[in-house]
């Protein structure tokens, strides 16, 4: 069982977390977004081997955050509260 660092609660067991998707998968707004772009946003995931930036939510405190981790070694590289990506 992995240990994930919640930016608000500190290190916790992975069972307390839910995966929220790729970080940086920005939502394209508008009723006329090109359909390919919308489909990419909805369905295409990068699923990298190695370093990945992901959104996770710590179910116990309810906060979403960005976690960088290595999908191969399971090493956690960083975790940052949403909205603070550029400050931390």
């Amino acid at each position, binding site marked *: 069982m992995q240990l994930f660092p919640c930016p608000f609660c500190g290190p916790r067991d992975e069972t307390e977390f839910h995966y929220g998707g790729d970080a940086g998968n920005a939502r394209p707004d508008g*009723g006329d977004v090109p359909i390919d772009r919308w489909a990419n946003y909805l369905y295409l995931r990068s699923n990298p081997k190695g370093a990945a930036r992901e959104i996770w939510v710590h179910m116990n405190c309810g906060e979403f955050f960005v976690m960088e981790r290595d999908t191969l070694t399971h090493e956690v590289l960083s975790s940052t509260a*949403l909205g603070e990506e550029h400050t931390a």
Partner: protein
Amino acid sequence: MTASRLATGGSAIDRSRPIRFSFDGTSVDGFVGDTIASALLANDVAVVGRSFKYHRPRGIWGAGVEEPNALIDIGGPRATPNARATTEPAREGLVAKSVNATPNALADRNAFLDRFSRFIPAAFYYKTFMWPDWHMFEPRIRAMAGLGKVDTDWTSPGTSDQVNHHCDVLVVGAGPAGLAAAKLAADADLSVTLVDDQRKPGGSLGHRAGDIDGGPAAEWVEATIAGLAGGGHLILPSTTAFGIYDHNLVGLNQRQFDGRPDTLWRVRPRRIVLAAGAIERPLPFANNDLPGIMSADAALAYLRRHAVLVGKRVVIATNNDSAYEVAEAIAEAGADVALVDIRRDGMPVAPAKVRQFKGRTLASAAGRLRVEGVTLDDGTRLDADCVLVSGGWTPTIHLFGQARGKLAWSEARAAFLPGNPVDGIAVAGAAAGAVSLSEVFASAEKAAASLGQTKAAIPRSTGPEATAGIVAAWPMPGSKGRIWIDYQNDVTVKDVELAARENFVSVEHLKRYTTLGMATDQGKTSNLPGLALMAGITGRTVPEVGTTTYRPPFTPVPLASFAGARVGELMAPVRRLPLETVHRAGGAVFQEYGGWLRPAHYGGRNADAVRAIQDEAFRARQSVALFDGSTLGKIEVIGPKAAEFVDFLYYNTMSALRPGRCRYGFMLSENGVVFDDGVLVRLDEHRFVVSCSSSHVAAVHARLEEWRQDRFGRGAVYIHNATSEMATLTVSGPNARTLLETVGFGLSLADAALPHMAIGHGSYAGDEVRIARVSFTGDRSYEISIRADRAEPLWAHLRQAGQAFDAVLIGLEALMILRAEKGFIVIGKDTDGTTLPHDLGSDGPRTKRQTEYVGRRSLFTEEASRPDRMQLVGLTVPQGEAALATGAHGVERRGGKLHSIGFVTSSYESPALGQPIALGLIERGAARHGETIEIQHLGKHRTATIAAPCAYDPAGDRLNA
């Protein structure tokens, strides 16, 4: 008698406390401190089980977790299949049975199988019974092969405890290396947890000679343990570290001997010292699986711990120095000992009274139900009632291997040793290849140094020092006779040769083809000989062949340990209403709906339930009905951007809602599918209440939070789930307002003041109440929300006041009929994972809204615009016919084939209409009202006519009646 209990000695047993238990129906005497194995040996029970495949008689091999043969089924309240006799404490009254033996180990009726052994090599069953279908033969083959039997009637006497634990250093193994490392860590002020799978600490010091710091090893063990315990460190005996998982989480299984199930520990240490020792290997010779052939080290352990002398005429075969101490001790205890050493020179001097055969190996053993003699490679025959073998030592480095540690082959030790260090794990003692106590302590110091401290002095070995002196003696291809590699899985040299011939030469293929190294012992004694043999056959070196992947668990762990308390109701706890006990007293029959335990109906069980539900639904339309709607979601959305937020979350424009008003709407997923429906209440300019579906509260809440944090920011919107804080009591029906006026809430209930889809604020008995005029029944309805802990008097008051109006209590089943009569949907029942809002007749926002909302773009795809989409409809049946089956399909014949055009989603007898009603999703349904279609269910066909979803009061007059 050959094996026997000596009159004195035995450090582990308490001769003042005799016990008796039964094995295969025979009673066995022992002492407290015996294992089942030591007691069986003391009673000279040679045959303790039958082998997995050939039903060969098998005896006790080892004295610990590595035991491949002596598996037993333990009965009674602490029933355990495949328990190891070598680690299971003997206790009074215990009932043990040998495995894979009918009726018992000594007289097994499937023993004939062994005579056909050359016809049933590895993979025989799969190859032979492939045609026509393996599954035809499997049950009978499985009944003949296999190990212990699971008692399917057994129920746990209690739930297993699970403990989460943190420490600086976890030391696995309380032998000399583990104790030394634990002491060094403790002296450096680190918090230590020391675990050992034996009941008593000390490891090999429990039966091997040694002096430490000028005194007997036993005194040092005692003092070290006392020091650790006194320092507040945690010491867990009878506990196995069975697995290491991500980020160095270590799983421990702790045996309990007081009637409790095992305890599961999840330990997060900063560092791990692995000092789990080493396991002795067998030697290859024909019939090396006969009962009475044992690990030499195990025999020494039985002698010194349990005062059991394993034989009178003992042959000891070895390829290393460790057997010499065994030979000396067994001879001293009175047995006649012959020592057969593969080495011609360089070995220790033979102990007194021990005949030594230099440069010799065992060619074969003979005997039927137990070993009676051996033949050396030069043809010399020796009588023996017991043969002890030492084929060298395999370090126990499973945790290191599981943590992806790389192994390094050591020719000097004829074993794999830990290679490059793994972050956070240090290996010490015999597990690291140390042999003498001095080497053991040096490796413990090195391990402790890697923890980052140096100050304490390491123990000194002041007695005799063990030496290795090992010469490899691997199984050889082309050997004569049947030479067992894996006792537990009945894998012989010939099976490995067959695997090689069929090109299963990689270790992983070898394992799966022959089952070498599988099952409960996981090849603790057999893996290395097996892969060394494969190396010999294929002309490779042992490290070139390599090992199979190390996977947890090291020893079997009861599933009950992993389940812990998550059994029965605690597996998925239901949510409960604040008024549950009141409803039960009122005759409610409860059922689980979407995680909530709710009244299904009041009164009427089994066959009467249908009548009770129909009665409730009928009477609800006559005068007034009371319903507990407390499960309805009440998620508050607060803040300066609250209106913008709900606009984005809802399909419908919600910001136009005036304070004090409600609106029904959909929430969509980003793929456009309707995710939830419900009423949104605007309390004031910056405060809304999302009244979502009961079973959907957690999911809606999570979704709101996600969008809040990801799109709106934490500062502008705040979300609070108040669902369980408030009870919601619903009063519905033509007399609802009149009834409420008799109760009085300090506000006007006149339709001008409180019209449909409006809210009012009042009070009851000093508590604030919120009254929302929304309706899920189609009748005039009031939802009264009050603090959950104050709901009971109000419910009682409503019931009492309702008597004058012939008020009826309704459960969820009646409510489902009432809402279906009105064509009101339940998300997930009347919709599926493809239903878009316009499929439900809600096309306005899709065509008119200009602002952004969740799922918007998905409503304009090719798929969303298909003309043949399934749409919500009502379905009626011909006069006098029964209700349709929910799930029945609408079908059309196209090109001679039946084709589904949708299905029935809800179906009830409507007491108000006196006929069945149904809702469904049917292709192009919105444009087909009045059309009769064919319905198929379980092969039967009938007809139904498509109608508008609303079957009752389509004009909605009853909302204000």
